């Protein structure tokens, strides 16, 4: 018996493969049910026009009850960086409520991709979070271990 998380992820993957991803989102890699990679690109006019970001999902065995660990992939030596955004730290960690306290098991990988895409699309000014340096210095490897404080509900 495959676990619930594997079954659910298999369904999501199957749907992505038959139905395709939303516009601007592409599945890069899903070799197992632990880590998936997506590329996301903001369509239309935005501050991120022409930029393609890589989004990393990590699932634990409690998915979908517990949220996936989602972050932008950062590989300095390969030139992959996190987008500059007031809610995205330079190590790729994202401060978004739906990845933390506001996660709901009815959300899906694709839903998260679209949410983050729209988070980028609605950005007014490209800047790092104010406490970026402090956070990145001591940040845990897994963004789920960070207790974010969500203060901005406009994005």
């Amino acid at each position: 018996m495959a676990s619930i998380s594997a079954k659910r992820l298999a369904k999501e993957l199957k749907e992505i493969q038959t139905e395709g991803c939303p516009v601007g989102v592409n599945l890069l890699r899903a070799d197992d049910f632990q880590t998936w990679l997506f590329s996301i690109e903001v369509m239309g006019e935005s501050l991120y026009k022409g930029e393609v970001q890589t989004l990393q999902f990590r699932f634990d065995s409690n998915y979908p009850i517990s949220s996936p660990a989602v972050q932008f992939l950062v590989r300095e030596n390969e030139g992959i960086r996190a987008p500059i955004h007031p809610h995205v730290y330079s190590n790729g960690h994202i401060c978004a409520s739906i990845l933390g306290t506001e996660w709901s098991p009815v959300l899906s990988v694709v839903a998260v991709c679209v949410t983050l895409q729209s988070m980028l699309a609605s950005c007014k000014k490209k800047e790092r979070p104010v406490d970026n340096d402090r956070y990145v210095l001591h940040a845990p490897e897994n963004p789920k271990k960070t207790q974010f404080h969500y203060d901005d509900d406009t994005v």
Partner: protein
Amino acid sequence: MLLRQQPPPHAIFWRGSFFREKRNLQFRSLLEEGGDVVSGCGETIPPLELPGGGSHYHHQPTLPTAEMATFLTGDMPDDPIDFPPQSQAPGLRDLDAALRCSICGELFDGPVSLSCGHCFCSCCVRTSLSTKQECPTCRKPGNEDHIRPNPSVEEAVLAWKRARQHILHLSKQDTPASADQAESGRPTKRLKRTRKVDYDSDLECIPGPSSSASRSASITPLTPKRHERRKPVSKALIVRTPKKAGSPIPSSDVEESDEGKMTSRETDLVQCPICEKKVIMTNINRHMDNNCQDANDTRSTKSQWAQLMGNNKAKKNQTRREDNDLERLPKASYDALKDRVLKDMLKEHDLSVTGDRNALERRHQRWVMLYNANLDKSHVNRKTIPELRSDLKLWEEERGRRKKHAVQDIETYERQHKYEFQRLIEQARPKQGTKPSSARDDTPEPGSDATIHESSDVERPTMSL
């Protein structure tokens, strides 16, 4: 082509079922028009060759895990997308999706509703509520006390499970000719139009010889027809009601005979193949499951008439009594319990008492959940206690396997992640200041790696992709 696209709807409002909600997106309509927006893979492309988008990020393909392998070699989970798309079989995917739990994506298993009305598998929503006390779909506050069984949905799921294979078969039978056309994009319209003709005519529901014409008509109208049929309250009503605004000739006779057939089918007496007693059709399964000993075996003709007339009071009372036979288990507040008491509680249900305190608590918690969720099902669908026990065991093994996986093959893990470790060591060095590191400078010993790994991560670390 891509520039036409607007940014997706605002994110924070993205809620709801992951099967249904997505339909709103533009890409889906484009898909059905045959547009080429989809970067992704068609059904024909094997899952591992991921096309598109990979240009800026290269990776070495890794071997799929065992789980993935089973997923790839058949044993695919059933899904709404097993059915042909909306353009070919209207409503079928939606119907299948509507009968699925939005947490696990499976057909409802013991469906229950919260006070807001949203429906989930009992077990899923109990697990979800234990982490967060709100409805997963609408986020209205909720707790386990709000859970109400939803027997109507349960029946619908049961019926759909029986019908699903058959309908899937029919829809597949129908599509091969049209599937190719649909792929190329244009001729779907023609297909739709011919469908529509069938749709309006009254011939569609009459089971005939399996000529290709009747076969092609047999799928599409199924859902709307059924829906229509369920609405009228009595037969008399049907005769008077004009069938449908769109249909040119009201054909109550077909509808009526159909209706008549259905009611008679539900209440028909059939002979039990074992005891040769006459049993009502709908009760035959339960009758045989109970070794031909019906509880209401000795009922009077009056109650038989009552059953025929749809007055199921007697039956209802009976099920209610059965429900009360089994009390739901109370939740325990584990902090206040001593080990011994906790073990007694487990022993009470013949559960294992091995493992540390945490394991015991988790086991008991899960048991209470499984047990109570089982009681949300109707009596016939319930699992037996031994079955529940083996479910619990499976669940524990699953968890155990995952945990072990993280520490298992240290050597290969170390080899695979050598560069990652080196990078981390490099990073850590300046922070440590002057004091460090004669030990750190050496090539890492297997033991030290294992400790890094164990302490730093819950799942499999994945940095060196």
